[in-house]
């Protein structure tokens, strides 16, 4: 362990790092891109003077001005459409949904215009927009503030969807999304904003289409994203103590799936467990199950198990809410079942 400590210290000196929280990492990524490219701007409710309801844009309006960090009225469909029009005419806007659920009101614009206009214009107009915001099940926020929109948007052609889960990939994905010419939806999670991590000082981005290997292993492939990554890692500790060796992959790219990383893992372990926060019906897990079955059927020794949230509007009561989402104990049971 002493050797590791020396290596870690050396690495810190050679590759300096700084510690911050996830929401600060998002802000740092956004700020750096805004400095780098004056066309990057932010639009959303309370992003300016209030600094963002989760502080992701704190201080940016003071630095860049009220037009670059635009406080919009409460009109999601229209200001998302406005962002799309701005993107078509040369800007690179970031649309913040105060809660991802609010973007249900912008479904018309996201589906019809964001996803389609590059195609229906015959490739003439690009829409380099980033749509981001916190979603997922929080702490007793009630059904409407606890939605997972990734399942609703995944069929829209022409958009990419990524989900961040650590300060490192939050900043990296934010920057990559801002530099991409495609419209990207960046899913953040309400409960992950205060995660702390040391991230590199130098400029870096995370590839939008790649998955992240969290823990290499041999016995089973566990695919997850966003907050469930932490439930999986918690379950992994228990599993390791029980003698299992799970491989944990944070898929990060919800659309398209990184079938290379996922496929290599399946070919190695032959057993797949998907742990997600989407609802059972029509979620990311459902699509992922189909994609893996189609592409890697021959490599599977057992049917894929997909653990999702219950098909229920997220209840307010704490215990009921706990039972709605996948808990580490269920993950352990599922792995044991898979590996029988």
């Amino acid at each position, binding site marked *: 362990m002493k050797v590791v400590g020396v290596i870690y210290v050396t690495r810190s000196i050679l590759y300096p790092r700084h510690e911050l929280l996830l929401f600060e990492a998002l802000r740092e990524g956004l700020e750096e891109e805004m400095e780098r490219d004056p066309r990057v701007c932010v639009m959303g409710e309370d992003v300016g003077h209030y600094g963002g309801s989760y502080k992701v844009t704190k201080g940016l309006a003071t630095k860049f001005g009220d037009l670059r960090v635009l406080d919009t009225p409460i009109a999601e469909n229209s200001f998302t459409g406005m962002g799309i029009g701005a993107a078509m005419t040369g800007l690179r806007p970031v649309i913040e949904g105060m809660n991802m659920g609010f973007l249900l009101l912008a479904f018309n614009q996201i589906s019809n215009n964001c996803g389609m206009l590059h195609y229906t214009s015959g490739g003439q107009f690009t829409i380099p927009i980033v749509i981001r915001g916190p979603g997922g099940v929080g702490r007793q926020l009630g059904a409407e503030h606890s939605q997972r929109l990734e399942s609703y948007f995944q069929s829209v*052609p022409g958009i990419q969807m990524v989900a961040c889960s650590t300060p490192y990939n939050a900043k990296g994905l934010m920057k990559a999304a801002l530099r991409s010419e495609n419209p990207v939806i960046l899913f953040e999670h309400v409960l992950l904003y205060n995660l702390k991590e040391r991230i590199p000082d130098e400029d870096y981005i995370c590839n939008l289409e790649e998955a992240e290997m969290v823990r290499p292993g041999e016995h089973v492939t566990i695919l997850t994203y966003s907050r469930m990554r932490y439930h999986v890692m918690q379950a992994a500790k228990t599993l390791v103590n029980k003698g299992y060796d799970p491989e944990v992959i944070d898929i990060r790219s919800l659309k398209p799936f990184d079938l290379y990383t996922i496929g290599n893992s399946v070919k190695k372990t032959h057993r797949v467990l998907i742990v997600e926060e989407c609802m059972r019906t029509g979620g990311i897990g459902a699509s992922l199950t189909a994609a893996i079955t189609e592409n890697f059927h021959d490599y599977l020794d057992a049917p894929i198990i997909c653990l999702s949230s219950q098909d229920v509007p997220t209840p307010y009561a704490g215990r009921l809410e706990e039972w709605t989402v996948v808990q580490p104990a269920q993950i352990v049971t599922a792995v044991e079942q898979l590996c029988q």
Partner: protein
Amino acid sequence: KISTQPFSLNPTSPTSHDRPLVSPVPTSLFLGSTRKLRLSSSSKLNLHRRPGTVVAVSDVVKQKKSKSTHSLLITKEEGLELYEDMILGRAFEDMCAQMYYRGKMFGFVHLYNGQEAVSTGFIKLLKQQDSVVSTYRDHVHALSKRVPARAVMSELFGKTTGCCRGQGGSMHMFSREHNLLGGFAFIGEGIPVATGAAFTSKYKREVLKEADCDHVTLAFFGDGTCNNGQFFECLNMAALWKLPIVFVVENNLWAIGMSHLRATSDPQIYKKGPAFGMPGIHVDGMDVLKVREVAKEAIGRARRGEGPTLVECETYRFRGHSLADPDELRDPAEKAHYAARDPITALKKYLIENSLASEADLKAIDKKIDEVVEDAVEFADESPVPSQSQLLENVFADPKGFGIGPDGRYRCEDPKFTEGTAHV
């Protein structure tokens, strides 16, 4: 018959062609010539007074025209340009109808016959860098914005030489070169896009410091759209940030079979502008010169940074909502009333009566346009249909968005992937 007639001729009012429900504000409140339509440059929006001014232009322009024979509203060149543009719109749409019934174009096709004055009146005042956003009734907006007739016709035939490579169709005309930002099938969804284009113009001037950027955006939409949330949300945002945009309502009284009066609590759309802090103007949309006068003022306001304007053009479509619409619901008397106000006939009369052009000049233009439209059809006929490799080419600007395949390579690296055999 129901009590609310869509129109009635009121011979006693000075502007007999105005419908009673949208009759203009009494002339004593009217501001006079176009110069006075402008809110004085020193007046900021005073929120304690009624912020905008609701005016109607029909009276004034008619007055002005008859008053002096020396000051005409247009020069000969302008007159011929307007005439040619309207004839192009009309001839093109008539050809579309023919081609549709001959099985050359398909789906939903919405023709603009009768409304040419609005498109010509507004768009001919724009520069190339100004943007236009339209609806599904967009062929003529595209033509007025100078998208070549060949490109539009090919698009309608679904050929690769169409302005959108055949991928958009009748309801999705786009041209980056001419700043035509669509072509939208759902009503109202283009208005936020137009608001965004106007936002970019303001952003370029104020953030990117391109001091001479004064690009204006026009958003065209119909009476039905004025009951839609996006309309109101964008009126609010445009006025709030003083965006360089003009909201042009093409009120042709009918949303397919729904009469504007049956759908709207207060049918006077121009009154809704001041509620949001911008001027609301009602103009006779069958008269290209009146439309042009109002357009000059509204576009000028936007260019000077004074903010948006709502212009309601009273107009009419001579054909059904689309080529699939049997058009049985509209009163033949109403149709006849507006047919008598054909904007092309009106302009022709004006040009000849004021010796701006001769019959021969106009006939020459008619012939020229016939040839342009015939050429467009020929070009479209001879153009190739898209090949299968075009299927997925434009889904993403950056085709890496299709992701990484099981073999570790990006799917787009496979030259055949655009044919649509790649799973995601």
